[in-house]
């Protein structure tokens, strides 16, 4: 693997690092998370102005032309700051589905709004019965006239409350778990027949349950080819894993470093608790879990950038398994070593742990990806 980074990648990394360290305090983050919107619109505009919202899109589409490596460098920094703005949902998921499946006309119509920050978006792919199987879809899209009619239910749609554009997976043919016959549609959440139930998630993000009852869309709303949405969905979700996994790496770094610092300061029995060998060894294990995750992050990103296929999928699943295992270990031990303080709302430690816990579940947990890894 070649770990030499380009000047652009290094500059991108440094600019996000500066922003998170200087302008993204934990107290502000908490205040924004509790606001009606659930994030800071000013921050979102800053992301757009600095070009971060265009990082994964090609220069022809108005983006930065970045790949998985750029995405990881960004998301790792977002993990350090526990960034609450809906980058994953809007740019990586909804934007990713359009990038991979959309026609030139659709990209020209939909991506500029995402890149300039004026459009919030979401990807509605999960269903209650499906667990982590992307192909398990009961939502139907029935051809009617020049368009389709959508009926069904989509679960835990990230950024659903703020989304002005939702990409929905629906079955146009085949059985409930067939990979063929899945079609993606870009819909307006204000369209007749779309109803939402919004809620916060345990890690302070926002999501919605979305019901589709006789939602009429025209044929131009189909992203990609009819019945061929599964490969687009799979690649998009794997990019989502790359993004949240990298975010988890940033969370873990923050947790182990803050824990080491706390144990240097906190005294018990007349000396800093960091001098106790048993605690030192735990912190070394946290450090190791972080470094292993970070190494697999780069390996997976480089595989993705070499070309999407079974090798990249295998690397992504290995990364997700590691993240699930390491995130749990680092989070639990950070809380444990901070004592009762670790779970209080005012200390950031518990919030990082919550985010890591949710990241394990997102897009398939460690058990699911271990199976996928073995099967590939």
């Amino acid at each position, binding site marked *: 693997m070649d*770990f*030499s980074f380009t000047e652009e990648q290094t500059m991108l990394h440094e600019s996000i690092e500066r922003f998170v360290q200087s302008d993204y305090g934990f107290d502000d983050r908490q205040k924004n998370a509790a606001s009606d919107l659930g994030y800071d619109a000013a921050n979102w505009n800053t992301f757009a102005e600095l070009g971060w919202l265009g990082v994964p899109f090609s220069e022809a589409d108005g983006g930065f032309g970045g790949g998985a490596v750029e995405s990881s460098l960004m998301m790792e920094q977002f993990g350090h700051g526990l960034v609450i703005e809906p980058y994953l949902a809007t740019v990586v998921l909804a934007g990713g589905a359009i990038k991979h499946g959309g026609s030139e006309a659709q990209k020209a119509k939909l991506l500029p709004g995402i890149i300039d920050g004026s459009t919030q978006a979401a990807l509605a792919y999960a269903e209650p019965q499906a667990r982590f199987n992307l192909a398990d879809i009961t939502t139907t899209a029935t051809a009617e006239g020049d368009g389709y009619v959508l009926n069904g239910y989509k679960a835990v749609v990230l950024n659903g409350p703020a989304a002005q554009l939702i990409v929905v997976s629906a079955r146009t043919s085949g059985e409930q778990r067939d990979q063929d016959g899945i079609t993606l549609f870009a819909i307006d959440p204000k369209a007749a027949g779309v109803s939402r139930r919004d809620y916060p998630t345990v890690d302070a993000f926002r999501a919605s349950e979305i019901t589709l009852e006789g939602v009429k869309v025209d044929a131009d709303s189909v992203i990609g080819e009819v019945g061929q949405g599964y490969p687009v969905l799979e690649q998009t979700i794997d990019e989502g894993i790359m993004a949240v996994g990298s975010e988890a790496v940033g969370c873990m770094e923050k947790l182990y470093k803050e824990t080491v610092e706390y144990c240097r300061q906190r005294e018990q029995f007349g000396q800093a608790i*960091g001098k106790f060998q048993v605690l030192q060894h735990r912190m070394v294990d946290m450090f190791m879990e972080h470094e292993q995750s970070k*190494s*697999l992050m780069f390996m997976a990103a480089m595989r993705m950038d070499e070309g999407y296929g079974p090798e990249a999928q295998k690397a992504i699943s*290995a990364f997700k398994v590691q993240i699930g295992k390491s995130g749990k270990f680092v989070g639990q031990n950070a809380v444990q070593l901070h004592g009762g303080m670790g779970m209080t709302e005012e200390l950031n430690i518990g919030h990082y742990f919550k985010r890591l816990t949710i990241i394990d579940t997102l897009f398939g947990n460690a058990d699911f990806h271990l199976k996928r890894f*073995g099967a590939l």
Partner: protein
Amino acid sequence: MNESDWQHQAQAFIADHWPGPERLAHPSAYQLASARWYEALGVAGWSTPHWPAQSSGAATSQLSWPKQRLYQWQMFCHQARTPPINTLAMSLIAPLVMTHGSEHQREVLLPEIAAFDAHWCLGLLEPVNAPTAQPTRLHETPAGTYLQGEKRALADGLLMSTELPKDGLWPSRMLCIALDEAQQWRACLLPADRRGIKLRPVANARGRWFHVVLDEVSVAPDEILSLSGDALLAALAQPETLSQSMLPEASSFGLAEQLRLLRRELTATKHEDTDTLLTQLYEAEVALQSLRALESRALAPATPPLATPLPMPMLSLKAQELGQQIGALQLASFGYYALPDASALREHNEGPIHPRGDASGETAMLTSQALSALATSHYGWNPRDILARQWLGLGENPQAAEEPSRQS
């Protein structure tokens, strides 16, 4: 020479000089082939391609291979399951002597190490089961300087055998640490046959250990290293800080070979535990990917955003854990066929017991190889202590500071 030509040359060298363990069923055949392998390495100069040219006058130090090529060389050796190049002498004694040895020590010891002529053992630890035991002492008398004490010494894993050493494998040199009269730790570099040194082999599944009695062993001034005290302990615990030219380990390739054999075993027949074992196999395979990614990062230049190099003890620790994970899975996979002592069967030329051939024996041998190699990686020091002190800045464990020789 371009990289492709070099790769062909390296693989041809291995093919010419190492027959492969599968063709060396009897331990004596393995030992003979190992001796020939080490001799060929020494003659070709491929034992020390990582040494800086000025460290020794020997031609072996003239190759100046880049880091990536050194790693690939280790990778090819692991894949062919050759005896290891990164012996104790190579990875600990040589950097220590190069950096802190006198001219005389460098001239005598380095060529010996490069030619694999000396079998070193390390006298760092002391018997932990004797609460009244005193640290080994270095005391001066009008007649000279003498060592007195007991050690639990780890012998060089040159031949990678878990059996007790025979005459030809007996250590010929010893590094022994002791407290001098100023209460400073000193390192003595001695011939192991010096009068007053008694070595008794101690059976141990993870490498070759000796109980060493040092009874009024005389030590010449040029047999004592100039480095002393805490700096000496730090250098012994983390020799990679001494030299930029350590041979990078490629443990993942040796472990990958074991996992390949294990997968073959697990998929050969299905039984009621197969699914559980396969899940554990996948976990080990993910851990292998993680180790390989760590190794690759360790070779990367330290530039942003990866400005901090990876600590080498982390790689050793990860390889050690994965080796143990694989060992446990091997035992679980072979069921009752984990019981036969494969090396004893080889000793008497009795051949494999397993109805499908020598799969279990072969894997058991690989397990002992891996554990033996890894046991030599940090010489009995706990890598977690090193990482805590050197990389997390957590300060010394008070007990360890008082009794550095009993950290095992």
